[in-house]
């Protein structure tokens, strides 16, 4: 249950319980009012059930939305990673293509150079052969011819070495070319594979977005419904408040009449918790974990208004009455578990929610510090008590009147 729903339930609960308490004393005042109160109470209960159900559905929708958003975010992250990977692969393919072009150009150039070198070698051989034939009959310069023949051998050897060097370089480049082509093929395959993965992720993301859109539509519908219900409850509360005022007016008049008859000298009942006789004490030793008033819920990113506080204490701890009073209500309330309401008189009430068991009964008078119940057991060893104080129908911050550990 969301804090908003809790807030509504709390208001409704207090109003309903107050009316339930006040109803018997007003019964003598007018049966029409009691009937109206019963009717309104029934309608309120019904509306409360619907509101609770809607709130639960909304919560569920919110969880679904959160999960779906999480999945969308995950998919988006996955897609980003995939895009980065594809981009890297594209860059690699581009670099490989550039390298491939360069190597192909080099191979072509080496091929042309090889052809030129071979042609030059053949022509040089022809020139050498012609020169050899011409020089064979030249007996006048035998030493010169001998030297020229030697140098021609050196020249041809250098040319042949040049051809061999170009051949080796071309073979090496061709090997490199083959390697790059193989690399390009592998990278292309990888790219295709990753593209498929990316497409799958994209389709999953689109499906998830569609699902999220459905959830958001559902959430909006539920929020609208909840808003409408809350408006109805507010109107109902105003009706109940009006009836309550009428009851109080009647009670005041009854007290005046009783005072006139019995010339009562008793003092006026307290209207503020600070003026409560005997003062107030903490219901148990613990730490306030949920504060009173407007609080921002980071989970759902909403601002909610708490009518009470939640005190974390050891599991099974005893809950004591904060002051002298009479048990006005002890029973289960949806969203709050077992709830005990103590009427302190003068329109002052203290509400204890999320209890495991009661040690007092409805109508029983309790003193300050009287153990009224226990907190439930929990595997973690910690349980939470809901404490709300109301004065004249208005919720007040319990920490302002009771010393609580915050």
């Amino acid at each position, binding site marked *: 249950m969301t804090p908003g729903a809790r807030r509504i339930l709390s208001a409704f609960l207090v109003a309903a319980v107050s009316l339930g308490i006040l109803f018997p004393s007003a019964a003598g005042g007018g049966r029409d009012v009691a009937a109206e109160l019963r009717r309104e109470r029934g309608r309120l209960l019904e509306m409360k059930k619907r509101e609770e159900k809607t709130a639960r559905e909304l919560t569920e929708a919110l969880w679904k939305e959160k999960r779906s958003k999480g999945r969308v975010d995950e998919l988006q992250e996955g897609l980003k990673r995939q895009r980065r990977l594809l981009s890297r692969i594209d860059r690699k393919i581009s670099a490989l293509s550039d390298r491939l072009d360069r190597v192909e150009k080099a191979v072509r150039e080496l091929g042309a150079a090889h052809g030129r070198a071979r042609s030059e070698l053949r*022509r040089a051989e022809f*020139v050498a052969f012609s020169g050899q034939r011409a020089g064979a009959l030249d007996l006048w*310069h*035998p030493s010169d011819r001998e030297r*020229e023949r*030697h140098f021609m051998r*050196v020249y041809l*050897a250098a040319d042949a070495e040049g051809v061999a060097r170009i051949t080796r370089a071309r073979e090496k480049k061709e090997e490199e070319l083959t390697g790059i082509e193989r690399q390009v093929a592998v990278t292309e395959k990888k790219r295709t594979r990753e593209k498929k993965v990316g497409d799958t992720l994209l389709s999953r993301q689109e499906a998830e977005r569609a699902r999220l859109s459905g959830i958001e539509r559902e959430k909006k519908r539920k929020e609208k419904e909840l808003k409408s219900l809350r408006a109805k409850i507010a109107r109902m509360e105003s009706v109940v408040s009006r009836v309550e005022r009428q009851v109080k007016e009647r009670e005041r008049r009854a007290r005046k009449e009783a005072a006139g008859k019995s010339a009562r000298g008793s003092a006026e009942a307290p209207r503020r918790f600070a003026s409560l006789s005997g003062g107030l004490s903490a219901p148990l030793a613990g730490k306030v974990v949920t504060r009173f008033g407007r609080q921002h819920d980071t989970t759902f990113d909403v601002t909610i208004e708490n009518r009470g506080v939640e005190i974390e204490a050891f599991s099974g701890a005893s809950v004591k009455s904060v002051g002298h009073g009479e048990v006005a209500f002890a029973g289960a309330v949806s969203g709050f578990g077992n709830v005990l309401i103590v009427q302190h008189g003068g329109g002052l009430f203290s509400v204890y929610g999320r209890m495991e068991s009661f040690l007092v009964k409805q109508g029983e008078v309790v003193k300050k510090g009287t153990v009224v119940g226990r907190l439930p057991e929990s595997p973690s060893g910690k349980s939470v008590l809901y404490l709300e104080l109301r004065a004249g129908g208005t919720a007040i911050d319990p920490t302002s009147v009771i010393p609580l550990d915050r």
Partner: protein
Amino acid sequence: MSERPSLWWIDWRLSPGPLVRETIGRFLLFCLLGFALLTLLLSGGVSRILADRYAITAVLRAEVPSGEGEGLARKAAALPPVRSATYRDPETAWKEFLRSYPGLDPLRGAGENPLPGYIEIRIRPDRLTVEDVEFVVSALRAVSQVDQVLAGEEWLPRLLSAGRLASWACWGIFGAFLAGFFLFARLQERARAVALAGDFAFLAERGVSAGRLAFLRAAGAALSGFLLAALGAAAGGGALFLSLRKFPILERVIGSPADLLLPRTIASAALFSIGVALLCSATSLLGWSAARAGRK
């Protein structure tokens, strides 16, 4: 004695006209032979030609710098049989090579020069023998900077044999000319002796012995032959000197003009003159004896 005619120059007195023509002819011949002799002496036959044609090539390693190559050339030039040693750097070798094979020039284009530098070693003409060449080659092969030595070992012995044969042929021709001169001069002497037989008989009747007459005629012929040969050799030497000065290219084949004044050259010319004098004297005696035999 003064009243008696001199028998030394009896032929000149008895027949001056023909003898002048004969002397002019012999002088011209001796000029020619002197020229040939000096040429052969200076050139050593064909040795100088062969020495000019033959060269040992010491191909240096590619990494040898020019300065080192020049130093090696200087060291090679200091070897006793070596006449000259010239270092050619790779660039020069490349240019020479392209001149020899002009078809290669456009083929190589921007390609670098593959040829190394080399040292061209020429041997002295008088030391151009297989032994001296092997001495130089082994000295060069011992140098680490020398990659290869091209000394024409395959054809050098044949070349030297051919050179020797050519030299012998030259000297043979020279000798043949001398022999021809001898035979021709003998015939001339005989003919003259026959023509002057009456005069010689008259002298014999007057108490001049035939032997004395023949001896004195031979001595006169020798003297005139010596003088003619010496003059001819001098004239030939002069002509050779002028030729060498005018055509320096001949120096590569024949030799330096200064060599003409070497003692050995002069001594050879003197020997030539003496030899000619002996030949003239012999032809005179042989002609005399042939004329007398024919008359009897």
